[in-house]
């Protein structure tokens, strides 16, 4: 079963641990300005949303890539990146409607989520389960169950 990196903004505490884990697992150092996940926070309301590539089925970044640097292996879900094929044209960064493919001028490469080879470090470090790496078909299960629980309480209370 293919897996998806599910984001639960309602659980996010805004701690940015995911950025740190991402940076560290790719570079062995801490450079959140160049990570594959980025947390945006609205301070007045105290709300935070982690953003990262969701490996689109129909991926604009892949379609626009002229060299096949962004590609998908047959039968898999991950949009993969090969730096050796990349010419640094940045077309993918323009094509991605979510802004989840980013050019890093320090390494001269495209930064997008590679799910750390199937064991995402951001998921492992998240202290509040705001990021989950789960089977595609049940990716919304926890959210649906949480709301089902509210129905349950309402009926029990009636």
């Amino acid at each position: 079963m293919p897996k998806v990196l599910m984001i639960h903004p309602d659980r996010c505490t805004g701690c940015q641990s995911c950025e740190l884990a991402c940076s560290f697992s790719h570079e062995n150092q801490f450079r959140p300005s160049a990570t594959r996940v980025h947390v945006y926070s609205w301070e007045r309301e105290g709300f935070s949303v982690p953003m990262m590539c969701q490996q689109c089925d129909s991926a604009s970044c892949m379609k626009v890539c002229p060299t096949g640097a962004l590609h998908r292996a047959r039968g898999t879900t991950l949009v993969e990146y090969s730096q050796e094929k990349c010419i640094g044209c940045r077309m993918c960064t323009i094509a991605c409607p979510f802004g989840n493919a980013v050019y890093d001028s320090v390494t001269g490469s495209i930064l997008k989520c590679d799910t750390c080879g199937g064991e995402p470090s951001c998921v492992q470090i998240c202290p509040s389960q705001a990021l989950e790496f789960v089977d595609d078909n049940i990716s919304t299960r926890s959210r649906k169950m949480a709301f089902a629980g509210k129905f349950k309480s309402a009926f029990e209370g009636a």
Partner: protein
Amino acid sequence: MNGYTGTILRINLTTGAVSRQATNMKDAALYIGARGLADKIYIDEVDPMIDPLSPDNKLVFAPGPFTGTFAPSGGRYHVVTKGPLTDAITGANSGGSWGPELHYAGYDALVLEGKADEPVYLWIKDDLVEIRRASHLWGKWVPDTTDMIRAETDVEAKVACIGPAGEKQVLFAAIMNEMHRAAGRGGVGAVMGSKNLKAIAVVGTKALSVAKPKEFKEAVLAGRKGIKEHPVGGAGLKAYGTDVLVNILNEIGSFPVHNFQDGYYPHADRVGGETLAANQLVRAKGCFSCVISCGRVSKVKNPKYAGEGEGPEYEAAWSMGPDCGIDNLDAVTHTNHLCNEMGMDPISLGSTLACAMELFEAGLITLKDTDGVDLRFGNVDAMVEMTRKTGLREGIGNKLALGSYRLANSYGHAELSMTVKKMEIPAYDPRGIQGIGLEYATCTRGGCHVKGYTIAVEVLGSGTKLDPHLTKDKPYWVKLFQDLTAAIDASGGCIFGTFGMSGENYAAMLSALTGITYTPEDYLKAGERIWNLEKLFNIRAGLTMKDDQLPARLTTLPIKTGPSKGELSHVPEMLPEYYALRGWDVEGIPTRERLEELQLV
């Protein structure tokens, strides 16, 4: 260079000169960073006798080695200066993301000198440093200041700023970052205001490197696991915030009420964390790299006090709540939001109001002094109004802005000020908890709980459980907590990390990160070195053992009701043992031997 960037940024606000110097790595090894390194830089350069609000004072901001890494809850910075409230060394510590951003920009410390001749703010983007005009920001409250500076610099800039309280030099004004995080105590915001400095906006894009990545990750994961498995660090603080302590402290009768006239409040639950979670809490929030998430995003719907923001923490719910005879949590949450927005410390504010209320009820001040406000205990509207007046220094707010000691003293009744070294002591009654009283009395920055939080063992039973009413062994525990906290502050860590992490965890993380080997003993020794350095500054600033004592009320007036009825603080009996353990003489002066042992001479 691992754990450090190797550069200290220095800005002279009088001349506009910007300079850089190399981080002294010998000092870094001895004082770690953040609180320790900032102390060392500050104390080497500043005459202890200066007026804290004069251009002669300096203000040092410093992240620690952990700051910007994924060390658990390790994203903090420290601000060091001579405090206008205490006329002693002061250091205030804050979380959020500002400290990491300064570290990513490439700086182990930021040293500010002099005074700008008009309001300015600093814009730091990596190597770019600009001093910009801030006349249009002067008078703005913290959230608007933050938004306006982001609009002028970078939408993701981290902004540390002062509100009107700092501009007007309220002696307990805070420096706020990311709107709601505070370097809160001792008046560091007033020093920033005295320099005409409104804000420091930072964007950092550089990398922080690690000496031994594999070992560092292992040490961090072990530490995180320890916190997650701890009942306080792993669950309690996220569910109910620090305000969970209201019921815990009240149940042992060590919850000060009415300016410490008693130690038990029958309706304490009304301002407790459980009540907050049921009514005002929107969600839990974490600082940078935090696994604990004690932060409270809170919203008040009651139209009279409506608004969104963060908090209150336990100590704020206490000071503006039952210490003022108030148990309306909507109002307390509202005034906490006001404190954040105006940039001032709610502990000193609430305790100063409680002092004013006692002066009023005793007839020592009257309606003529209070701008016509009925300042009896329990008057919710008066508490809200006085908060605003203090932040803006209007009317009686001009006197409240000086803190309870100067207020009460101006009416000839300094004994009604619940302070040590003129800083308000917080929400743990030292008559019912002996160790914390010794911490209040001896803390280098005055009446403070966090720099020697013996509540962890005296009340919460974290690791060990001690009888709070007994004095036995308390000097040992106070010294241990003070030294460990100094080392954690210096590393850029949060003291709540000790709910699950030990000195071994901290020493292992710091060693793997920096490549400098620290045993747990070395780590504690660095903390002790920092404590003694601060103490030496205070002695040169004119403080003596007379300043190491609690208000007489706490050693002479027993708690009247509740489980700790009849109890008094025994600080005077514990002090000689504490001095001896510290290697200080009978008057609390560090001996040459101990200073040599600590490499301080």
